[in-house]
Protein backbone atom coordinates (compact mmCIF):
# COMPACT_ATOMS: atom_id res chain seq x y z
CA UNK A 1 0.00 0.00 0.00
CA UNK A 2 1.45 3.37 -0.93
CA UNK A 3 2.14 5.96 1.75
CA UNK A 4 -0.86 8.12 2.46
CA UNK A 5 -0.38 11.86 2.29
CA UNK A 6 -2.40 12.40 5.45
CA UNK A 7 0.08 10.46 7.55
CA UNK A 8 3.07 12.25 6.02
CA UNK A 9 1.77 15.80 5.68
CA UNK A 10 4.03 18.40 7.24
CA UNK A 11 7.21 16.35 7.03
CA UNK A 12 8.23 18.36 3.99
CA UNK A 13 6.77 21.85 4.09
CA UNK A 14 4.40 22.76 1.26
CA UNK A 15 6.44 25.94 0.84
CA UNK A 16 9.50 23.93 -0.16
CA UNK A 17 10.75 23.51 -3.71
CA UNK A 18 12.01 20.18 -5.00
CA UNK A 19 14.41 19.59 -7.88
CA UNK A 20 15.12 16.92 -10.47
CA UNK A 21 17.99 16.62 -12.97
CA UNK A 22 17.23 16.51 -16.68
CA UNK A 23 20.24 15.09 -18.52
CA UNK A 24 20.47 14.90 -22.28
CA UNK A 25 23.86 13.37 -23.14
CA UNK A 26 25.22 13.31 -26.68
CA UNK A 27 25.07 11.32 -28.85
CA UNK A 28 21.43 10.54 -28.47
CA UNK A 29 20.32 13.79 -26.89
CA UNK A 30 16.85 12.77 -25.78
CA UNK A 31 14.48 15.69 -25.28
CA UNK A 32 14.12 16.06 -21.53
CA UNK A 33 12.67 19.55 -21.74
CA UNK A 34 9.75 20.75 -23.80
CA UNK A 35 8.48 24.18 -24.78
CA UNK A 36 4.80 24.35 -23.93
CA UNK A 37 2.91 27.22 -25.56
CA UNK A 38 1.44 29.47 -22.87
CA UNK A 39 3.60 27.90 -20.18
CA UNK A 40 7.24 27.98 -21.28
CA UNK A 41 10.07 25.52 -20.93
CA UNK A 42 9.23 22.56 -18.70
CA UNK A 43 10.33 19.00 -18.14
CA UNK A 44 8.90 16.28 -20.36
CA UNK A 45 6.64 13.89 -18.52
CA UNK A 46 8.89 10.96 -19.47
CA UNK A 47 11.76 12.51 -17.53
CA UNK A 48 9.71 12.53 -14.33
CA UNK A 49 8.33 8.99 -14.37
CA UNK A 50 9.79 6.17 -12.33
CA UNK A 51 11.12 3.27 -14.35
CA UNK A 52 9.55 -0.15 -14.05
CA UNK A 53 10.69 -1.71 -10.82
CA UNK A 54 11.41 1.67 -9.26
CA UNK A 55 8.83 2.46 -6.63
CA UNK A 56 9.13 6.21 -6.37
CA UNK A 57 11.02 8.81 -8.43
CA UNK A 58 13.91 10.66 -6.81
CA UNK A 59 13.88 14.40 -6.27
CA UNK A 60 15.94 16.71 -4.02
CA UNK A 61 14.91 19.49 -1.65
CA UNK A 62 16.21 22.91 -2.66
CA UNK A 63 16.48 23.72 1.04
CA UNK A 64 19.28 21.16 1.36
CA UNK A 65 20.58 20.57 -2.18
CA UNK A 66 21.31 23.34 -4.65
CA UNK A 67 20.70 22.83 -8.37
CA UNK A 68 24.44 23.06 -8.97
CA UNK A 69 25.12 20.38 -6.34
CA UNK A 70 22.46 18.16 -7.85
CA UNK A 71 24.27 18.26 -11.19
CA UNK A 72 27.62 17.68 -9.44
CA UNK A 73 26.24 14.50 -7.90
CA UNK A 74 25.47 13.12 -11.35
CA UNK A 75 28.90 14.12 -12.65
CA UNK A 76 30.54 12.37 -9.68
CA UNK A 77 28.54 9.30 -10.66
CA UNK A 78 30.13 9.39 -14.12
CA UNK A 79 27.20 10.87 -16.03
CA UNK A 80 27.58 13.32 -18.90
CA UNK A 81 26.09 16.52 -17.48
CA UNK A 82 26.98 18.91 -20.30
CA UNK A 83 23.94 21.01 -21.06
CA UNK A 84 21.97 19.39 -18.24
CA UNK A 85 18.93 21.15 -16.87
CA UNK A 86 17.39 21.11 -13.41
CA UNK A 87 13.65 21.47 -13.09
CA UNK A 88 11.75 22.58 -10.00
CA UNK A 89 8.24 22.30 -8.62
CA UNK A 90 6.66 23.42 -5.34
CA UNK A 91 5.69 20.72 -2.86
CA UNK A 92 2.31 22.40 -2.55
CA UNK A 93 1.74 21.85 -6.27
CA UNK A 94 2.64 18.17 -5.92
CA UNK A 95 0.12 17.84 -3.10
CA UNK A 96 -2.55 19.67 -5.08
CA UNK A 97 -2.14 16.82 -7.58
CA UNK A 98 -2.82 14.48 -4.63
CA UNK A 99 0.68 13.05 -4.69
CA UNK A 100 3.05 13.53 -1.77
CA UNK A 101 6.71 14.27 -1.09
CA UNK A 102 8.57 12.38 1.64
CA UNK A 103 12.18 12.86 2.76
CA UNK A 104 14.65 10.10 1.93
CA UNK A 105 18.10 11.47 2.73
CA UNK A 106 21.14 9.60 1.46
CA UNK A 107 24.79 9.98 2.51
CA UNK A 108 25.55 11.80 -0.75
CA UNK A 109 22.37 13.87 -0.95
CA UNK A 110 20.89 14.94 2.36
CA UNK A 111 18.05 16.61 0.48
CA UNK A 112 17.04 13.46 -1.37
CA UNK A 113 13.30 12.92 -1.30
CA UNK A 114 10.68 10.90 -3.11
CA UNK A 115 7.39 11.66 -4.82
CA UNK A 116 4.97 9.01 -3.66
CA UNK A 117 1.43 8.08 -4.64
CA UNK A 118 -1.39 8.29 -2.14
CA UNK A 119 -4.61 6.43 -1.60
CA UNK A 120 -6.31 9.24 -3.55
CA UNK A 121 -3.88 9.41 -6.46
CA UNK A 122 -1.96 6.42 -7.83
CA UNK A 123 0.83 6.85 -10.35
CA UNK A 124 -0.67 7.14 -13.85
CA UNK A 125 0.69 8.41 -17.16
CA UNK A 126 -1.68 11.38 -16.94
CA UNK A 127 -0.39 12.44 -13.52
CA UNK A 128 3.18 12.73 -14.88
CA UNK A 129 1.88 14.93 -17.69
CA UNK A 130 0.12 17.16 -15.17
CA UNK A 131 3.21 17.36 -12.98
CA UNK A 132 5.51 18.06 -15.94
CA UNK A 133 3.33 21.01 -16.96
CA UNK A 134 3.90 22.51 -13.50
CA UNK A 135 7.70 22.29 -13.59
CA UNK A 136 10.05 25.13 -14.40
CA UNK A 137 13.69 25.03 -15.47
CA UNK A 138 15.83 26.67 -12.78
CA UNK A 139 19.35 25.74 -13.84
CA UNK A 140 21.18 24.90 -17.04
CA UNK A 141 24.68 23.47 -17.01
CA UNK A 142 26.92 25.15 -19.59
CA UNK A 143 27.36 22.97 -22.65
CA UNK A 144 30.93 21.70 -22.69
CA UNK A 145 31.56 22.36 -18.99
CA UNK A 146 31.77 19.60 -16.40
CA UNK A 147 30.22 20.03 -12.96
CA UNK A 148 32.78 17.85 -11.22
Amino acid sequence: MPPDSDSRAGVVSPDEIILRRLLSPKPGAPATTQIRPGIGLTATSFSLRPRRGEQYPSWSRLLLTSPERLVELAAEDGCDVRGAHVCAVAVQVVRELRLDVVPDPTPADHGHCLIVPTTRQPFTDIIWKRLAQKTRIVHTQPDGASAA
Partner: protein
Amino acid sequence: MIPIVGFEQRSLGVHDVHPDAVTSVEYAARAATWLGDALAHVEQLGALPANWDSYGSAPVAMSSIVQACRFVTELAHVPGVMRPAITATPDGEVGFCWDTGRWSLDAAVEPSGAIRYAFVASDPPQERESVTRDISDLIPLLTRS
Protein backbone atom coordinates in the same frame (compact mmCIF):
# COMPACT_ATOMS: atom_id res chain seq x y z
CA MET B 1 25.48 5.11 -34.65
CA ILE B 2 23.35 2.07 -35.09
CA PRO B 3 22.48 1.60 -38.75
CA ILE B 4 18.84 0.90 -39.38
CA VAL B 5 18.60 -0.62 -42.79
CA GLY B 6 16.04 1.06 -44.96
CA PHE B 7 15.49 4.21 -42.95
CA GLU B 8 18.15 6.30 -44.68
CA GLN B 9 15.88 6.64 -47.70
CA ARG B 10 13.74 9.71 -47.28
CA SER B 11 11.38 8.77 -50.08
CA LEU B 12 9.96 5.67 -48.42
CA GLY B 13 6.23 5.45 -48.37
CA VAL B 14 4.41 4.43 -45.25
CA HIS B 15 3.55 1.00 -46.54
CA ASP B 16 7.18 0.36 -47.48
CA VAL B 17 8.13 0.32 -43.83
CA HIS B 18 4.82 -0.61 -42.28
CA PRO B 19 3.02 -3.12 -44.48
CA ASP B 20 0.33 -3.54 -41.85
CA ALA B 21 -0.47 0.16 -41.68
CA VAL B 22 -4.16 0.65 -41.19
CA THR B 23 -6.05 1.85 -44.22
CA SER B 24 -8.67 3.88 -42.39
CA VAL B 25 -6.18 6.74 -42.13
CA GLU B 26 -5.83 9.05 -45.10
CA TYR B 27 -2.14 9.21 -45.93
CA ALA B 28 -0.31 11.84 -47.93
CA ALA B 29 1.81 10.68 -50.85
CA ARG B 30 4.84 12.52 -49.49
CA ALA B 31 6.12 12.54 -45.94
CA ALA B 32 6.29 15.70 -43.86
CA THR B 33 9.59 17.53 -44.19
CA TRP B 34 10.50 16.77 -40.57
CA LEU B 35 10.61 12.99 -41.10
CA GLY B 36 14.30 12.75 -42.00
CA ASP B 37 15.44 14.63 -38.90
CA ALA B 38 13.04 12.67 -36.73
CA LEU B 39 14.32 9.31 -38.00
CA ALA B 40 17.92 10.40 -37.42
CA HIS B 41 17.09 11.47 -33.88
CA VAL B 42 15.32 8.19 -33.10
CA GLU B 43 18.32 6.27 -34.42
CA GLN B 44 20.72 8.31 -32.25
CA LEU B 45 18.85 7.28 -29.12
CA GLY B 46 20.41 3.86 -29.58
CA ALA B 47 23.77 5.31 -28.52
CA LEU B 48 22.55 6.21 -25.04
CA PRO B 49 24.24 4.20 -22.28
CA ALA B 50 22.42 2.74 -19.30
CA ASN B 51 21.81 5.33 -16.59
CA TRP B 52 22.04 8.14 -19.12
CA ASP B 53 19.59 10.20 -17.04
CA SER B 54 21.50 9.55 -13.77
CA TYR B 55 18.37 8.01 -12.26
CA GLY B 56 18.97 4.46 -13.47
CA SER B 57 17.26 4.52 -16.85
CA ALA B 58 17.67 1.56 -19.20
CA PRO B 59 19.42 1.90 -22.57
CA VAL B 60 16.98 2.23 -25.44
CA ALA B 61 16.00 -1.16 -26.84
CA MET B 62 16.83 -1.69 -30.51
CA SER B 63 13.38 -3.18 -31.02
CA SER B 64 11.80 0.00 -29.68
CA ILE B 65 13.91 2.06 -32.10
CA VAL B 66 12.77 -0.03 -35.06
CA GLN B 67 9.14 0.18 -33.98
CA ALA B 68 9.48 3.92 -33.34
CA CYS B 69 10.86 4.47 -36.85
CA ARG B 70 7.82 2.74 -38.26
CA PHE B 71 5.52 4.75 -36.00
CA VAL B 72 7.01 8.13 -36.87
CA THR B 73 7.18 7.31 -40.58
CA GLU B 74 3.51 6.51 -40.57
CA LEU B 75 2.66 9.70 -38.67
CA ALA B 76 4.72 11.83 -41.05
CA HIS B 77 2.43 10.71 -43.85
CA VAL B 78 -0.67 11.97 -42.05
CA PRO B 79 -1.47 15.57 -43.03
CA GLY B 80 -1.50 17.94 -40.07
CA VAL B 81 0.64 15.92 -37.68
CA MET B 82 3.32 18.19 -36.23
CA ARG B 83 6.91 17.27 -35.55
CA PRO B 84 7.16 15.67 -32.11
CA ALA B 85 9.83 16.13 -29.45
CA ILE B 86 11.73 12.85 -29.34
CA THR B 87 13.05 11.30 -26.17
CA ALA B 88 13.78 8.08 -24.35
CA THR B 89 11.75 6.74 -21.46
CA PRO B 90 13.26 5.44 -18.23
CA ASP B 91 12.31 1.93 -19.37
CA GLY B 92 14.34 2.08 -22.58
CA GLU B 93 11.57 2.93 -25.00
CA VAL B 94 11.36 5.75 -27.53
CA GLY B 95 9.02 8.53 -26.45
CA PHE B 96 7.27 11.20 -28.51
CA CYS B 97 5.77 14.41 -27.09
CA TRP B 98 3.46 16.99 -28.61
CA ASP B 99 2.13 20.12 -26.88
CA THR B 100 0.15 22.85 -28.65
CA GLY B 101 -1.01 24.69 -25.54
CA ARG B 102 -4.55 23.46 -26.18
CA TRP B 103 -3.71 19.77 -25.98
CA SER B 104 -0.72 17.60 -25.33
CA LEU B 105 0.02 13.97 -26.07
CA ASP B 106 2.86 11.70 -24.99
CA ALA B 107 3.39 8.33 -26.65
CA ALA B 108 5.91 5.63 -25.73
CA VAL B 109 6.64 2.96 -28.33
CA GLU B 110 7.19 -0.39 -26.65
CA PRO B 111 9.52 -3.01 -28.17
CA SER B 112 6.44 -5.04 -29.11
CA GLY B 113 5.12 -2.15 -31.20
CA ALA B 114 2.39 -1.31 -28.72
CA ILE B 115 1.96 2.42 -28.18
CA ARG B 116 1.22 3.64 -24.69
CA TYR B 117 -0.17 7.15 -24.76
CA ALA B 118 -1.56 9.87 -22.53
CA PHE B 119 -3.62 12.76 -23.87
CA VAL B 120 -4.77 15.92 -22.10
CA ALA B 121 -6.83 18.72 -23.67
CA SER B 122 -8.11 21.91 -22.11
CA ASP B 123 -10.94 23.01 -24.40
CA PRO B 124 -13.08 21.01 -24.18
CA PRO B 125 -11.51 19.22 -21.21
CA GLN B 126 -10.52 15.69 -22.12
CA GLU B 127 -8.12 13.12 -20.68
CA ARG B 128 -7.26 9.71 -22.01
CA GLU B 129 -4.53 7.18 -21.39
CA SER B 130 -4.42 3.87 -23.12
CA VAL B 131 -2.36 1.31 -25.03
CA THR B 132 -2.95 0.63 -28.70
CA ARG B 133 -1.41 -0.97 -31.77
CA ASP B 134 -3.63 1.02 -34.10
CA ILE B 135 -2.24 4.39 -35.08
CA SER B 136 -5.68 5.50 -36.19
CA ASP B 137 -6.55 5.77 -32.48
CA LEU B 138 -4.06 8.64 -32.25
CA ILE B 139 -4.80 10.50 -35.48
CA PRO B 140 -7.93 12.34 -34.27
CA LEU B 141 -5.98 13.47 -31.23
CA LEU B 142 -2.87 14.55 -33.15
CA THR B 143 -4.77 16.42 -35.86
CA ARG B 144 -7.06 18.22 -33.47
CA SER B 145 -7.13 21.98 -34.03
